[in-house]
């Protein structure tokens, strides 16, 4: 076995997962794309093959509505992987808070995909990575999980739950030299209406994917993207309390 990785990219229809798969392939790693059947997985497989012909790219169906099927999916991936397995998870769905207020089923759906699917899959793949005694897991978190905002607190709560679970999971996997990185991305344009100021633009998926790979190689546990949100998030979180206490 060499240092080459086979990256399992979860939620491959997500734009960030797509960017990450390309980034991983450009570094010479093999890629297995996991996503819903009918999503444009084959399109992405062709895309990566056309870009990097020396890289092995495969797609595997991932049914997030049937969490028990994940064990079989992991077995299938383990069988197909030729190198050290690493995982990038961008399984994510998002609804605007207004929609969640009207239909509570949407919150359930968000928890199913953003939390339970990732927890089930990572739990299923954990023994494989523990056996390897190396590998990386990168999970897409969000700054929305750091503090509640009126326009996306339902989505934020799914990410907050995931962040807490990952903290414990990190400690568990560290014993087996497997690094777990949580990438807390800022204002990803996945949900709701937004107003962007002149200089604030939606995040660049390619830059984020590059950072994810870089932080995983550096074995960083938690990172923010863009980096400066590590500073602005506490400010945004505590500014209202500070303002209120100063007003008193």
């Amino acid at each position, binding site marked *: 076995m060499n240092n080459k990785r086979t990256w399992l990219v979860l939620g491959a229809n997500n*734009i960030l997962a797509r960017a990450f798969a390309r980034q991983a392939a450009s570094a010479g790693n093999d890629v297995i794309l996991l996503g819903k059947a009918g999503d*444009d997985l084959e*399109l*992405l497989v*062709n*895309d990566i093959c*056309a*870009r990097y012909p020396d890289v092995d790219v495969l797609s595997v169906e991932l049914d997030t509505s049937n969490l028990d099927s994940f064990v079989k999916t992991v077995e299938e991936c383990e069988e197909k992987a030729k190198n050290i397995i690493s995982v990038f998870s961008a399984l994510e769905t998002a609804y605007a808070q207004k929609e969640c207020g009207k239909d509570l089923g949407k919150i359930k759906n968000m928890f199913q995909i953003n939390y339970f699917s990732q927890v089930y899959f990572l739990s299923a793949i954990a023994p494989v990575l523990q056996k390897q005694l190396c590998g990386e897991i990168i999970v897409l978190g969000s700054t929305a999980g750091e503090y509640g905002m009126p326009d996306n607190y339902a989505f934020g709560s799914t990410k907050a739950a995931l962040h807490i679970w990952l903290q414990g999971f990190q400690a568990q996997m560290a014993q087996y030299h497997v690094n777990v990185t949580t990438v807390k991305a800022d204002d990803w*344009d*996945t*949900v*709701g*209406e*937004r*107003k*962007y*100021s*002149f200089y604030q*633009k*939606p995040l660049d*998926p390619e830059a984020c994917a590059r950072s994810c790979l870089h932080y995983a190689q550096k074995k960083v546990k938690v990172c923010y993207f863009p980096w400066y949100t590590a500073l602005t998030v506490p400010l945004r979180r505590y500014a209202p309390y500070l303002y209120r206490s100063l007003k008193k």
Partner: protein
Amino acid sequence: MHWYEMKLSGKGRTSSSVGRVCRPERIADVPKYLEQVGKNGIVVRGSASSYADQTLNTDGAVMMSGRLDCIRSFNEETGELICEPGVTLETITRLYGARGFMLATASGSGQHTLGGALGANIVGQNGHKKTSLACSVNWMDVVLADGQIVRASLEENEDLFRSVIGGQGMIGIIVLVSINLLKKPALNVVVEKRRITNLNDLIESLRTVRKSCDFCSVWVDTSARSDAIGRGILKTASFTRDPVDVSLFSVPKRRFSLPQFVLHMASWSFFQNLRYHFFSDTKTVTSYEEFLYPSDYVRVFSSKGVYQLQISFSEAEGPQALRRILTELSQSRITACRAVLVLTKKDRLSYLGFALHGYTISLDFIRRKGLEDFLKHLITIATEHNGRVSLQDDALLEPRNLIMMYDCWDKFVKVRETLDPQKKFDSDFARRLFVREKKNEQ
């Protein structure tokens, strides 16, 4: 389906607008977004490389095509690449350059998306050999105003093909392109740079190099006065099998933006003088990829805004027209912060193709009081010499100029009226230049 409200500007930052923005990630989403477009229509925006209002749509919708960037297939034998429009030229060069392929056009910037490059019909440093990028397109799929996806090529839907190329997104949205990449004759290029003393020397040199070299561009010093008008540095390049020159003291290429104080008129003139006088003739061998995209490395962004004026002149009118323009610049003491001259071949492919068989000069100016009037004066000079102002970066052209400059303008308008009578594909640029057309309708 997500829409955002966003303030957008052109690359030159001379105009900005607030519009509703969407970012489709799949081709199938494009017609769905089109259904949700309001009364001011929609315009497609790739990498936002146009300087002015070409990709702005005040109170309308803007579709960012950057995420439609999947490559469908690449045929190693024929060089045929089928991809979505959001793939940038730099990406294509990076991926396939090492495999011995190159794009037909060596444009100044690699940041353009393929869709944007075709929509603007860009020309490059090899404009005298290959007209534009569009000459290597086999076919393209275009989403029309009614949401239908139609294939266009020179054999199939020819009018549509000729209108979409260079049509600034006013006809439809390109969603899939089949383009032929060319086999590189050699991996490296020999780049020669030499000083040009005045306009006569410049024209004479360009006549000589038109046949002999593969790539050619001239940096023109617009701060020059009297007899020195037209002086500059001529850069020519040709493919070679010689190995790349290795230098121990080479500085790695980094992208940087010039600081604001450099962009002051007096300091700009001073720097141009320095560049010219301290330049010594060079000849180096470099890899083709290193040689490409020179304008990506130095960015000229002023908070005041930058205007770009790109004018093409025929070989007969060129010398006289260039002399007039450079003399006007000299007399008015207005220094262009970037002036580049390239050789071009007549664009017969596109209805709104601007390149003529002759010379194309590209001038960048930092915005200041009275500059607009001066640029309009330059446009008048261009009209008098049967020149054409490029639509891709224009900010000041008027409808009457357009009609006088572009012979096939009426054909373009006819196609637009047939395919998009409701003007679903609209922009600030389209409303500025096609105002008569709208008035007639009313």
